[in-house]
């Protein structure tokens, strides 16, 4: 790159966009394949989830295009209001009738026409905030009190209501993003190790505190021990993967979505993909996420300023980390978290927020030095 290109707007990263479009296409198709039977039983309409997902796709694309248009530097203004908005929304969840309780957790805001999963937005807002904070305080990062404690304290305030939802998975993701962004921003490794040393006992305590978390953990360690109960989900997921073999049983011909796998269109969508398109299909999906991570970090590297670098890295990591936790979970590599697979799982908020993140990334890619 020479001086001529400097400060000129480039076209957005096409490869990243392409990867996202492929994932969306596959996701929409697989949501239909995996949900049609359940939709038919619950809503007497096999295309119920498909129709809604198509609406989400449009909303997501609108959000993405919007974010491409807004210069990312403008977003700094939203950093502090974003944290306050996050806290307000997270606290609103605890108000009856406004917070919706599903599957034992209060994660959705009741917005009459649709429900809104607050943490999905909080993740993006926290990254924006951390990027802003860390870029501004870049020179104080060497000191533990300012460099670590302030971001940690603010993040902790946000994580606390999330833990009370409860949504352990998202809390872990935000905590990990915090650590990784601190690492990129240049916090001392020693400080990070101290932070990790402090976080791990907290996590262990939280796991021991709730029975189902422990059950998930033991189920992860030996799913076949209690195959009919706590190990049931992970075993069904593993059976899906195995059934697919190398080439899969064919799109639409999977058996595991017939009530064997719970929520086949959300958390376990990759299990269905694995069954129907086999190892080949799974590899393609994972490769897509690898390309996404590569392009994302590339954008981060080429960002004109530290804020852009941190923001791009944070957004790339939140999606890559979400993908890894979901995929590793359904493959039985880590305990199940109940997190969606970005771009592929059914779910409005998650999808629109992921697309927002992509929009921001693409905007940063246009601003490269």
């Amino acid at each position, binding site marked *: 790159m020479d001086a001529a290109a400097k400060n000129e707007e480039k076209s957005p990263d096409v490869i990243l966009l392409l990867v996202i479009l492929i994932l969306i296409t596959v996701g929409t198709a697989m949501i239909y394949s995996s949900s049609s039977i359940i939709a038919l039983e619950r809503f007497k309409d096999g295309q119920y989830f498909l129709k809604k997902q198509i609406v989400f796709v449009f909303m997501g694309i609108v959000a993405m295009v919007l974010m491409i248009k807004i210069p990312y530097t403008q977003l700094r203004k939203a950093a502090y209001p974003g944290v306050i908005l996050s806290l307000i929304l997270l606290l609103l969840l605890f108000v009856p009738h406004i917070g919706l309780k599903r599957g034992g957790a209060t994660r959705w805001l009741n917005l009459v026409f649709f429900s809104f999963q607050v943490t999905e937005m909080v993740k993006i807002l926290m990254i924006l905030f951390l990027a802003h904070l860390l870029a501004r305080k870049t020179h104080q990062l060497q000191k533990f009190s300012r460099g670590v404690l302030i971001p940690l304290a603010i993040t902790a305030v946000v994580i606390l209501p999330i833990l009370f939802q409860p949504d352990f998975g998202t809390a872990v993701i935000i905590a990990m993003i915090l650590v990784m962004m601190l690492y990129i921003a240049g916090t001392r490794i020693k400080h990070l190790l101290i932070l990790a040393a402090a976080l791990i006992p907290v996590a262990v305590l939280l796991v021991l505190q709730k029975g189902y978390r422990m059950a998930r953990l033991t189920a992860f360690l030996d799913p076949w021990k209690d195959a009919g109960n706590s190990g049931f989900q992970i075993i069904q997921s593993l059976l899906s993967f195995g059934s697919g*073999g190398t080439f899969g049983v064919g799109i639409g011909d999977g058996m595991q979505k017939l009530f064997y796998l719970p929520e086949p269109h959300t958390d376990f969508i990759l299990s269905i993909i694995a069954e129907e398109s086999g190892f080949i299909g799974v590899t393609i999906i994972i490769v897509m996420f690898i390309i996404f991570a590569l392009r994302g970090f590339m954008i981060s590297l080429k960002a004109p300023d530290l804020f852009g670098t941190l923001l791009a890295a944070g957004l790339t990591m939140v999606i890559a980390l979400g993908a890894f936790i979901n995929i590793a979970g359904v493959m039985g590599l880590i305990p199940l978290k109940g997190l969606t697979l970005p771009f592929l799982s059914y779910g409005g908020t998650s999808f629109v927020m992921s697309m927002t993140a992509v929009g921001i990334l693409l905007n940063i890619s246009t601003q490269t030095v």
Partner: protein
Amino acid sequence: MAADSKKWLKVRIVSLLVFFLVLFIALISRAFQLQVLSGQKLKTLAQKQHTATLPLQAERGVIYDRNGEKLAASILADSVCADPSRIAEPSRASAQLAQILEMDKNAIYKKLAGPKNFIWLARRISPDQAVIVENANIDGVFLVKEPKRFYPNGELAAHLLGFVGSDTSGLEGLEKKYDELLKGKSQKHVWTRDAKGKRLFPHADNEEAVKDVNNNLVLTIDSRIQYLVETHLKEAVQSKGARGGIAIVMDPKTGEILAMANEAGFNPNNIKGIKPERWRNRAIADSFDPGSTFKPFLVAGALDAGIIKEKDKFFCEWGRYKVADRIIREANSKKHGTLSVPDILKYSSNIGSSKIAEKMGREKFHDYIEKFGFGARTGIELNGEAKGLLRPMQKWTKVDTAMIAFGQGISVTAIQLISAISAIANNGILMKPYIVRGFTDNDNRLVKMYTPTVARQVISPETARRVTAMLTEVVDASDGTGKNARIVNVAVAGKTGTSQIFDFSRGIYSRDKVRTSFIGFFPADNPQVAILVILDQPQHDKWGGVAAAPVFKNIGEQILNCYKTNIRENPVFDQDQANKLQLVAAEQNIPAPITVDNNDETVMPDFQGLTIRETIKIAKARAIEVSIAGSGWAINQYPKAGTPLTEDRSCKVTFSVSD
């Protein structure tokens, strides 16, 4: 400084990128391990949960008679089973089921509340109940078709066929003997299901129902002859006040059993409460002293060995002959002087027989007895065959030899006796008796066909012819003991017999308890049918010629009239038949007042106005057991037409020729 920090920033970002790449590559490796390396194992496990398997007994093979008439068949009955894991309210479901199935509510509840996911609730219920269960539509309760054994002819050949248990495995008779063959391999009913246990019909092509692999049994029995034999035997047993009776019809040239009957019979469709004694096939399982029916074998042996000639005469001591310390008398205190060999048979002289045996010597006599097949099992394909009792020749005293000559002091089975007489009928060749003609597969293609087996040449053909001629005289001569067995226009060879029954409690032969019998065959010049009739302890007409011979004659007469019509040269035209012919011609004038829809399978059809043949046909199709009285056209039936069919699928139909 700025450049340096930029460099370190890059390093940190790239290190995180590498970290993520490692994570994702780990995921791909895991996918490879799960899907490619252990895919097959997991796939098998998955398929196991995707399919539901229900082991079902294959439909049991049919037992046919030689003409393809079904003697034992399977009909499909509904069984109720349940998947307790799918029953939401076990208490309500059990109350509902208890009412329908007439079972104990608590017993059902116990089953439904259990942890299993498949249980039987009731096996082979009636069609009525099945309809109610189906309509009740209880979630998790379903019906499965199971074969149920049915004997369309009721008592017919029951002792031969035996019966099956509740799990349709053979417990007695041929059902037991050929259980493996008839049962076949158990069938697996496999279907694809979702996690809720619901059957998936779009995947029906995955259903791998194993094809039936059982065999059908074809017997040598002719059910028509079996029927008439049973009818005549029953009539004789009742009219003579006998305790029981045995009759066997055999083809002497092949050894095929055409009929084998025991009286009293039983209905294998319902064996509840019947004692094992009742289903014992006495024709093969019981042995007894043959009495005078044994004399032909003595004479045949003595002639064959050249010990005696036909012209030889024996002085019969005027009815009182002392052997060692024993006095031998003639039956019925008859007194004979000198008798030729044929006369000894004709008058059934005990003393004459004793003298022949004496002349022959125990070695030769024993030898021939063995050659005729006595003292050893014939090897017929039936369980529980007895050997009879032939004591070792070394132990025979003079008295033994003299008494065995007229069939006392030796024990034989009915099947041995008829086989032996058939050897005389068959030019001296003893055939191995058999009852299974062959097997067919499910599509009734012949799998195996048995051919007659020659046991051995017992006597020379010439001797056989001579003895046959003498036995013909027994029946044909006006003063022959077997004259009651005479059949018009057919030469019958036969021999009567009455043996005293050994009273085990007193250790002597009883004077008034006798077994009266008749063996014979016809036509004498080319024997095609051999018949044995035994009546156990008749109260009237104790002596063989009087009680058993007419049964032989009636059976023979009917066989000649109905089935072996080519044997008799001049079939007699009797007035009775002429009348029947006219009536048959007038059949179309008889209105058939069918008021009940005879296509409704759940109710008793209307038989009125139908012929016996039509009635049997309809009843068979419906698996109804009909008992027929009279002849002509059905005029009455009980239960009435339209009555719902229950467990007891029987109907009494009265026929009459007068309209």
